[in-house]
């Protein structure tokens, strides 16, 4: 029963980053969420979230912008088009895996 698993995107296939990408995927295409808000929703420490955002940024999946809202500096995060596609592919692969396993069990 060691059927080869379809390749799952290693960037997203880690619990913390999957949570980040899932949360970001609910935003509309060009919307950006404030870093502290994202941190609050995900209940991650700022340092931890930064580390994962950096990895996602390196893969071109998220875009981190530093800007000002009035006088307060803000960091905004957005899922890029590429990130969105990667997330959809990842989800599709999961469904394929799940159906594959179900079919295998039916055959057994």
């Amino acid at each position, binding site marked *: 029963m060691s059927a080869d698993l379809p390749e799952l995107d290693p960037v997203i296939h*880690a619990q913390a980053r*999957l949570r980040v990408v899932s949360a970001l995927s*609910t935003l*509309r295409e*060009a*919307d950006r969420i404030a870093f502290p808000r994202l941190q609050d*929703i995900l209940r991650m420490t700022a340092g*931890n979230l930064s580390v994962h955002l950096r990895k996602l940024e390196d893969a071109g999946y998220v875009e981190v912008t530093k800007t000002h809202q009035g006088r307060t500096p803000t960091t905004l995060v957005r899922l890029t088009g590429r990130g969105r596609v990667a997330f959809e592919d990842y*989800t599709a692969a999961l469904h394929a895996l*799940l159906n594959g396993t179900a079919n295998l069990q039916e055959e057994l």
Partner: protein
Amino acid sequence: MDARDDELPPADPAESLRLIARERATTARRLTPDPRLLLWPWGLAWLIGFGVFFLRFGPDERVYVDMPDYLPLTVLLGLITLAGITTGFVGARASRQVSGPSSRQGAMYGFTWSVAFIGMAVLFSRISDLLPVPDANLLWAGAMVALTGALHMAGGALWNDRVLYVLGLSISVVNVVGVIIGPGWHALIVAVFGGGGMLVAGLISWLRMPR
């Protein structure tokens, strides 16, 4: 969860899908402004404001509760202003969290309300003195409710929100019925069905939020 666990993949595909669904629901819930905060202040303002209106300017110019004739409008406008400040505050908080097309859309929609009501108020304050008091009251109240109904319908169309759309439609229908029945009754009908409708719509939208 420490950084080491973070790098671990979810146990299996089903677990991954559950995690995705959970995270998306949480995020949607946390980023959507509480519909009760958006609708209940207005519902209460209408219920109380138009209720006071009815008590002072009843059908056939009956006065159920004696009070100065400027008081009902003052109470109504005061409560509506409070409701406007509350929704403005909720909207501004939401736009500080997420910026981009969504928050621009919200800001434009909010601004539309102000512009529409100011336009109406400027026009009516010039002509309502020419009408007998009951008719002037009906003109103000009827137009205000018609505008609110139409703007809620537009909001429903904008966000593909059926509850908001049905609320706007109900308010519009209730308004027409009230206007046809006449001054006095209009205030009562709008207080109960319009104000009550907003309280109910706020509750339904809240119950329907992802949990």
